[in-house]
């Protein structure tokens, strides 16, 4: 909502406050002023001029040489390039020394040999947006609609010495979508009275009924309809003041009839519509629900097919307007119009919202109906329109109106006690201060038995319950006056749940291990949605995605994390190791999705890089596996790993991660073709079902006594077939080792050329230990022999 402060003064005394200060007061009281716009910014030394003569420039087709009376008896020659310049026009002149927005300074100049003492201006050159300039002047200079004394200062004559406040209205404050509404708000803030427009006009002897009949067949959607008939109307340009007020309010002037309806829309917040009476053709207006499939061409020249839930205004036969949203082209007011039917109505907001949504058609009218107009302004607005049409279009207003009225216009009563207000706010506002605020708001209030009985004006549809009154009192009393206290509730322990605490532990472990935390989008493309998913399900698609790239909910974190890696390597960050925790979205049993929190890791390039010491280590499967193992240790979980395959991963370098024998994750090297596709070098990925890891209860931590007895080490080197996995051998060793075997660790792997084809050498370090005593060589030898025997039996060859 754009509020001209100059216009506003017509309804309320703004106490000559500088506009910025007024804006600040409005903001602090509850309606945010988004911008304070000085309409005269950058303008100086502009005067009214009268074109006494105008001839074509001999050297240039598109230029005219004008003699312009600029006041003080001076006639200046000005060269003008506008196509619509003509002798006898009253125009805006920027004389030498004048300033225009954008820092442009006007100087005396010569154009193709002819002197030009300034410039004749268009409205755009004065900083007005093209979409607001009347169509007839959009391509040229602006011609003032009335004669004015040459030399008059243009800023005040055109009301450009004005500041506009741009209000950012929240949906509850529909009342402030009008100048009068804003005047009431400002009046309450500044403790000033509001003066309403005085409506007076002469009526013709003939009654409106003599020309028009009205029928409303949809009283639910249209409980109040008022029609007035104005005849002998002269459709023409509106006077300057009206045009300027509309432009200040962000509305383009058209002609006096349309402008009057728009002006009242801005003034009262009540949408009006003007029909060309003769085009109606039937002398009848009938409001009804549309017939299924019925068609109407609206003012924007679009043919629209209607449904039964759309409300239409008809001439008794055919639709002539989409009620409350947009008029029909068939009944539009034109230059030839002589008789006008003015509609002022109350349309139910749901009906308008549906219609406007179905047709993707938003107008100043529909947005006000959607939020609810004031039932008590429908009739005054119609009267105001009649008055202005009589005044500005020389119209003759027929006596009376056609009215269909089943609307409840009763003020709502809200009862609230002062104690309630104070207890909600934590304050001690005195009763008389409350009464003062309510009277400033023009809420009729009676204080009876410690109870405020408040009659809420119908313009304030947002005031419905006690809490709404609490807000009104608080905002006008001032939120700065509220003290700062803390809740007096019982002390609560608060704290993280075990799951949340473990999630933090996991995160801190991963960061300590050298991974950077990343965040990616949950929405992805069809192709990426199930790639790398541990348990892919049917995908979940948005009804109305904004793009295909963000249309499906992800089932794995890896695709987007890999994109992040590619993003980095494309920017020459060759080494990166990222992790993310976040939800994946699987189809579940419930109507809601099965959201699982996952953890994913991606790494590429060098894991360690101590260049000057010559120590470099590229990422590999075992770096990632080590992190996963370390995380499991931290969480007190025992994981196992099994060789596996997954699309997009290297078939020889992929392992599934198991917890209690159940698959909960994957570690793998990216498949070379996938690496190529993503422009990545050797890349390792991990994805784990984090929720499973974190919900698993861990055992209590019990200390094991540190032993006084030493451990004894023995090594075993074995020659094995290459396909035998280390884990298999370790299992054999552990099984045969008995109680005394404390620890088994691989310490060497050799697959070099000194080995026989298809063989490898694997060496284990074994540690023996007895918590009760120092082991003797004989005891260790006995245990070790057993292991060697078991290994030999299993086919391993001692080296």
């Amino acid at each position, binding site marked *: 909502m754009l509020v001209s402060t100059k216009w506003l003064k017509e309804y309320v005394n703004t106490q000559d406050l500088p506009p910025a200060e007024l804006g600040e007061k409005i903001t*602090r009281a*509850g309606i*945010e002023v988004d911008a304070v716009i000085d309409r005269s910014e950058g303008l100086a030394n502009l005067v009214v001029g009268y074109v006494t003569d105008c001839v074509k420039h001999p050297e240039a087709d598109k230029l005219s040489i004008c003699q312009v009376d600029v006041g003080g008896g001076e006639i200046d020659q000005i060269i003008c390039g506008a196509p619509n310049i003509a002798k006898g026009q009253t125009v805006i002149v920027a004389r030498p020394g004048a300033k225009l927005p954008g820092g442009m300074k006007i100087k005396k100049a010569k154009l193709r040999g002819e002197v030009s003492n300034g410039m004749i201006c268009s409205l755009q050159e004065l900083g007005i947006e093209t979409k607001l300039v009347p169509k007839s002047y959009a391509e040229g200079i602006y011609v003032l609609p009335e004669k004015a004394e040459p030399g008059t200062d243009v800023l005040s004559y055109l009301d450009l010495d004005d500041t506009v406040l741009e209000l950012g209205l*929240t*949906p*509850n*404050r529909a009342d402030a979508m009008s100048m009068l509404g804003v005047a009431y708000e400002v009046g309450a803030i500044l403790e000033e009275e509001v003066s309403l427009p005085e409506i007076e006009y002469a009526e013709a002897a003939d009654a409106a009924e003599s020309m028009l009949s009205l029928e409303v067949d949809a009283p639910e959607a249209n409980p109040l309809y008022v029609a007035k008939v104005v005849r002998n109307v002269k459709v023409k340009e509106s006077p300057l003041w009206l045009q300027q007020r509309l432009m200040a309010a962000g509305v383009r002037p058209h002609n006096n009839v349309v402008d009057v309806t728009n002006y009242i829309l801005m003034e009262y917040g009540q949408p009006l519509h003007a029909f060309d009476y003769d085009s109606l053709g039937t002398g009848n207006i009938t409001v009804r629900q549309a017939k299924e499939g019925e068609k109407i061409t609206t003012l924007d020249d679009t043919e629209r097919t209607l449904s039964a839930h759309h409300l239409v205004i008809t001439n008794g036969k055919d639709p002539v307007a989409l009620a409350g949203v947009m008029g029909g082209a068939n009944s539009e007011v034109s230059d030839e119009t002589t008789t006008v039917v003015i509609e002022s109505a109350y349309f139910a907001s749901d009906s308008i919202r549906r219609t406007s949504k179905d047709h993707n058609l938003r107008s100043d009218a529909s947005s006000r109906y959607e*939020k609810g107009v004031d039932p008590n302004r429908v009739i005054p607005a119609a009267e105001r329109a009649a008055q202005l049409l009589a005044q500005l279009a020389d119209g003759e207003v027929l006596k009376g109106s056609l009215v269909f009225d089943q609307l409840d216009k009763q003020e709502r009563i809200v009862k609230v006690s002062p104690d309630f207000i104070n*207890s*909600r*706010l*934590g*304050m001690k506002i005195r009763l008389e201060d409350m009464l003062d605020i309510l009277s400033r708001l023009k809420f009729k209030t009676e204080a009876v038995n410690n109870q405020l009985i408040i009659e809420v004006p119908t313009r304030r549809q947002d005031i419905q*319950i006690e*809490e709404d009154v*609490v*807000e009104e009192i*608080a905002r006008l009393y001032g*939120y*700065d006056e*509220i003290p*700062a*206290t803390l809740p007096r*509730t019982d*002390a*609560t322990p*608060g704290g993280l749940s075990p799951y*949340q605490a473990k999630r*933090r532990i996991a*995160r801190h472990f991963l*960061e*300590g291990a*050298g991974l950077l*935390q*990343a*965040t*990616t*989008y*949950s*929405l992805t493309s069809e192709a990426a949605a199930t790639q790398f998913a541990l348990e892919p399900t049917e995908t979940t*698609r*948005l*009804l*109305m995605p*904004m793009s295909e790239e963000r249309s499906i*909910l992800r089932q794995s974190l890896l695709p987007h994390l890999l994109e*992040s890696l590619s*993003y*980095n390597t494309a*920017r020459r*960050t060759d080494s990166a*190791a*990222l*992790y993310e925790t976040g*939800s994946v*979205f699987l189809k579940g049993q419930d*109507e*809601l*999705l099965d959201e699982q929190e996952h953890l994913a890791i991606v790494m590429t390039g060098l894991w*360690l890089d101590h260049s000057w010491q010559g120590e470099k280590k590229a990422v590999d499967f075992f770096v990632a596996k080590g992190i996963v193992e370390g995380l499991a240790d931290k969480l007190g979980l025992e994981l196992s790993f099994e060789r596996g395959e997954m699309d997009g991963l290297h078939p020889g370098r992929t392992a599934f991660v198991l917890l209690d024998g159940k698959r909960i994750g994957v570690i793998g090297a990216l498949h070379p073709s996938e690496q190529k596709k993503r422009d990545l070098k050797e890349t390792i990925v991990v994805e784990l079902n984090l929720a499973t890891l974190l919900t698993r209860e861990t055992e209590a931590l019990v200390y094991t006594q540190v032993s006084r007895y030493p451990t004894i080490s023995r090594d075993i080197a074995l020659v094995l077939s290459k396909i035998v996995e280390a884990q298999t051998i370790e299992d054999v060793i552990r099984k045969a080792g008995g109680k005394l075997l404390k620890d088994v660790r691989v310490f060497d792997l050799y697959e070099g050329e000194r080995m026989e084809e298809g063989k490898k050498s694997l060496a284990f370090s074994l540690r023996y230990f007895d918590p009760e005593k120092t082991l003797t060589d004989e005891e260790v030898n006995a245990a070790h022999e057993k292991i060697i025997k078991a290994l030999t039996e299993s086919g391993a060859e001692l080296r």
Partner: protein
Amino acid sequence: MEARLQELKNEALEKIQAAQTVKELTDVRVAYLGKKGPITDVLKGMGKLPAEERPKMGALANEVRAEVTESLDARMVILEEQAINEKLQSETIDISLPGRPAKTGNPHPLTRVVEEIEDLFLSMGYEIAEGPEVEKDYYNFEALNLPKGHPARDMQDSFYITEDILLRTHTSPVQARTMEAKGGEPIKIICPGKVYRRDNDDATHSHQFTQIEGLVVGEDIRMSDLKGTLSVFAKKMFGEDREIRLRPSFFPFTEPSVEMDISCFKCGGSGCNVCKKTGWIEILGAGMVHPNVLEMAGYDSKRLTGFAFGMGPERIAMLKYGIEDIRHFYTNDVRFLTQFQRTEL
């Protein structure tokens, strides 16, 4: 013989002084004092002396031996120290070379902000509540006083999956779910999480972003309690000398509703580019829980009242760290992420 001993002594002392290394000196020791050394030889020849001269000669020999030994030991101390110094000299490193970097990662800046806020409220006895990102229309809107067709639903264009299921547009459904689950009991929670809105991604908009909301419900919870709580939050997050101000606003789920500004932490209130010359920065929205919301969740709104607040960690991080583009949070540029390593305490 006496002359011979004196000669040997002088010779030895000369060689001791001439020795330059521990090894040379050890050679001197062996050469003069060893079992096969000349002094021993001299002493062996004592048998040939007359008996009365022997004690005198013996004493002299011991004297010489002692003198040489003493000189040797003294020289040894010097040479050993010299040797250590030489070794240290040779072991000197260029301490200006860079250290071996400790492998370390760090949290995402949003996590950093969220965790800081979480920790503050945890210390004040709050719990952290979480809920699904794919939500029922009921919890996302209806339970929050936003029935179907409510004009305020336009404020948040949503990603629907079916007519009744959508990606949550705020974390408030977690509040609704918590209230429903608590069955009328007092509540003190904060709800962090990801939310989604149908916005085109640009420097200031993101279709996915994060929110943190707080909810306190109890007997006689007042607007002043909200103000006090927010003031503690503002001082903790943005500095002890921050002031807050509340401005009336509108949210369907609170009444009264306010927006909270803090005095600009960059200019202190005199006006700068961070606060757009106003001295104040808008940080969050808040209000007293609307009685309809309490009633829908089964609370007696006459007996229990509450306050709620909500804020955007992206906005807070952008203000705090001077980040100019919201998309940085989601592109995971390592050059961006690694900047959030160090502490500010």
